C-alpha cells in the first residue's frame, strides 16, 4: 500500500502461531505492531509482517482478489478472506486459522480432508453463465460459460456450528457442490452423489443456522443448496418407493 505517511496508523495484530511439534493443548499467539493505511487489508498487513518483522510467519494466499479461495482465516473471531477483509478500526486485531480444519502451520490449514469430501461430489469447475440481459452468443460459441461461484476456501465449514462440534459432518461446501451437480449435471450422472449425500452425516445433519451462507465470500448460499439437496433426495426416495419393483 503506497500511502502518504499521514494516513498510516499503527495497529496491533495478535496472530495465532503453530509449528510442528507444538503442544496441541496450548495455543500460542505473537503480537506485531503494523503500519496500516486506509485501504490496507488483513493480507496486506500479514505480508508486511512477514517481510519486515517475521519471515517465518506462514499463511496461504494467491490471487489477492477473492477469486482463488486460499486466504480464508478468522479475523476477530469472524471468518473472512484476508485479501478482501479491511483492517478493523481501533483496538487489536486477532488473526487465527479457519476453524474445524486441521492446522498445519500458523494460519495455514490442511485442506486434504476438505477436498476428499468435496471430490465426492465431482462437481464440474465450469457452469453455464447466466446471460447478461439481452446478450446473444458470438459466432462459434454454443454455450456461455463461467466458473462455479464456490472458490473452495473452507470458510463455510469453519463458520458451521455443527461442524464445530462434530468432525464427521460432511460440511456445507461438499453439500453445495453436490447440489450444483444435481442442479446442472453437465453430462454426469448425479444419481450416485445424491444417494451419497442423502445421509445422516451429510445433507440431514444441517440445523439451518445459515452461518455458512452468511460467511460465504462468493455468494454460493450453501445452506439453501443443502435444503434443495434434501428436497431432491426426498423426491428421489419417493420415486424409488413408488416405482415398479422399487429397487431401481
Amino acid at each position, binding site marked *: *500500500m*503506497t500511502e502518504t505517511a499521514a494516513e498510516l496508523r499503527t495497529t496491533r495484530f495478535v496472530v495465532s502461531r503453530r*509449528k*510442528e*511439534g507444538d503442544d496441541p493443548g496450548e495455543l500460542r499467539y505473537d503480537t506485531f505492531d503494523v503500519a496500516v493505511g486506509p*485501504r490496507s*487489508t488483513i493480507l496486506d498487513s500479514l505480508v508486511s509482517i512477514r*517481510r519486515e518483522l517475521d*519471515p*517465518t510467519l*506462514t*499463511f*496461504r*494466499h*494467491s*490471487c*489477492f*482478489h*477473492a*477469486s*482463488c479461495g*486460499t486466504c480464508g482465516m478468522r479475523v476477530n473471531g469472524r471468518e473472512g478472506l484476508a*485479501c*478482501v477483509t479491511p483492517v478493523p478500526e481501533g483496538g487489536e486485531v486477532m488473526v487465527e486459522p479457519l476453524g474445524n480444519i486441521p492446522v*498445519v*502451520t500458523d494460519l*495455514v490449514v490442511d*485442506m*486434504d*480432508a*476438505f*477436498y*476428499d469430501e*468435496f*471430490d465426492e461430489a465431482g462437481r*464440474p*469447475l*465450469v457452469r453455464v*453463465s447466466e*446471460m*447478461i*440481459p*439481452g*446478450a*446473444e*452468443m*458470438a*459466432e*462459434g*460459441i454454443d454455450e*456461455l*460459460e*463461467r*466458473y*462455479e*461461484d464456490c*472458490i*473452495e476456501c473452507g470458510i463455510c465449514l469453519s463458520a458451521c456450528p455443527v461442524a464445530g462440534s462434530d468432525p464427521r459432518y460432511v460440511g456445507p461446501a461438499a453439500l453445495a457442490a453436490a447440489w450444483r451437480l444435481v442442479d446442472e449435471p453437465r453430462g454426469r450422472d448425479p444419481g450416485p452423489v445424491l444417494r451419497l449425500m442423502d445421509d445422516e452425516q451429510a445433507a440431514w445433519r444441517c440445523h439451518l443456522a445459515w452461518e455458512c451462507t452468511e460467511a460465504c465470500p*462468493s*455468494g454460493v448460499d450453501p445452506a439453501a443448496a443443502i435444503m434443495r439437496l434434501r428436497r431432491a433426495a426426498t423426491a428421489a426416495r419417493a420415486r424409488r418407493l413408488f416405482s415398479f419393483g422399487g429397487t431401481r
Partner: protein
Amino acid sequence: MTITRLPRQPYHVVIVGGGGTGGALAHDLILRGFRVTLVERGELTSGTTGRHHGLLHSGARYAVKDRESAVECIEEREILRRVCPGSFEENDGLFVAITDEDVAYEPLFFESCLASGIPARRVSREEALRLEPNLNPEVKMAVQVPDATMDAMRMPLRFFASAKAGGAVIRPWTLVTELLVHDRLVSGIRVRDLVNGVDDEIRGDLVVNATGPWAEQLAVMAGCDVPIRPSPGVLLAVRGRVCNMVINRLHPSGDGDIIVPQRGLSVVGTSSWVVDDPDDLGVPEDHVERMYSEGSMMVPAVRHAERRAAWSAARPLIGSRDADTGRELSRTFKCFDHRETDGVEGFVTISGGKGTTLRAMAETTADVICRKVGVEAACQTREIVTLPHTAYYAA
C-alpha cells in the same frame, strides 16, 4: 496416449519456485523419468502466477508488436485446452474500437492476427452491442478473437497435481536460504522448513531457478546474473460480471485495456512500471483510478462498480537494465544455462513469459536439462491430460 515412463533415471532436479512454470516443469520432468523436488517459500502460485487477471491469451494483443509472443500464445492455447479440459471459460474475446484512432489501428491489428495464426473476425457495431450489451454505446466496431478465461491458481495447480501423483516431492513453506555452490558447481540448496523450523540441505544434480520476478535474487546466490526486470502492473476487481467475453481495447497496448470476467467479478487491468524488489510493489491509487477510467471507456458500468480489490503483480520481463516502463520489454521467455552465461554448472534459470505459456516454458527448460545431463527424453506434456486441481489435495 499412455504415459511412456522411461527407465528410472538417477538424475534428481531441484526446482526453486512454486509458480506455474515450476509446476509445469515438475510435471514435464517427472514424465521424462527424472526425480523432482520442488520447494516454495509460501503457498503454491502465491507469487506472480496467482495474481494474474486470468486471460488465456489468444496472443492477439501481441500480434502487431511481438509476433513471437503472439504465435506462442495461440499454440499454447490449443494445447492447454487439450491437456486441461474443463478448466477454461471459452467465451472468446472482443477487441473493441471506441475512438477513430482505434478504428484506424484495426486493419494492421486484423492482418497481424491472421499472420500470427490467430483466427479473427470483424464484428459490426450493432453485433458487438448484441453480444455484449454493456459495451460503450460509442463503440465503432470490434474484432472477435479466441481469448478465453482461466483460473490463475487452479489451472497451474493441475500441473502440480499430476507431478505430485507422478512422484514429485512438492514442499511448500520451504524457504531457500542458500545455494550449495563449490568452485562454480551448484550441487543443491540449503533450506529452512517453515513448518518445523529445521534447516536442511536438498542435494540435486541440477537446480532450476523458476522464481519469476525473484529470479535475480536467487541467481545472485550462485554468483550468476539474469537480466530480469520485475515489472508490476495494477489490477482492479469490481463486483458484478459486466461481460461474458474478454473485452480488450483495440489500440497499441496501454493501460487499463482489458476486462476479464471472473465468476461474479470483473477484473480490469493493467498498468506497468518497473521496480527492483518484487516484494515491495505497492498499489498506486492513481493507477487504480486509471483502471476505472480506461475500463469504463470500454464498459461504462465499470465506472460506478463497487471495488472488490485492487492489487499489483510483478511480471518477470527479460530485457536490458535501462527499460523504464517495462512495456517494451519482450514478453517471450528465456531459459538461461548458467554454464554458458556465467560459467556456473548445475544451475539453470527460466523466466519471462506469461500465464498462458507455462507449459512451453517448462518444455524448453526440460529440453535444456536433458541436453545438459545427456538424457534422451521427448516431451509428453502436449498430449498427457493433467489431473484435476483437486487431485493435488488427495491424501
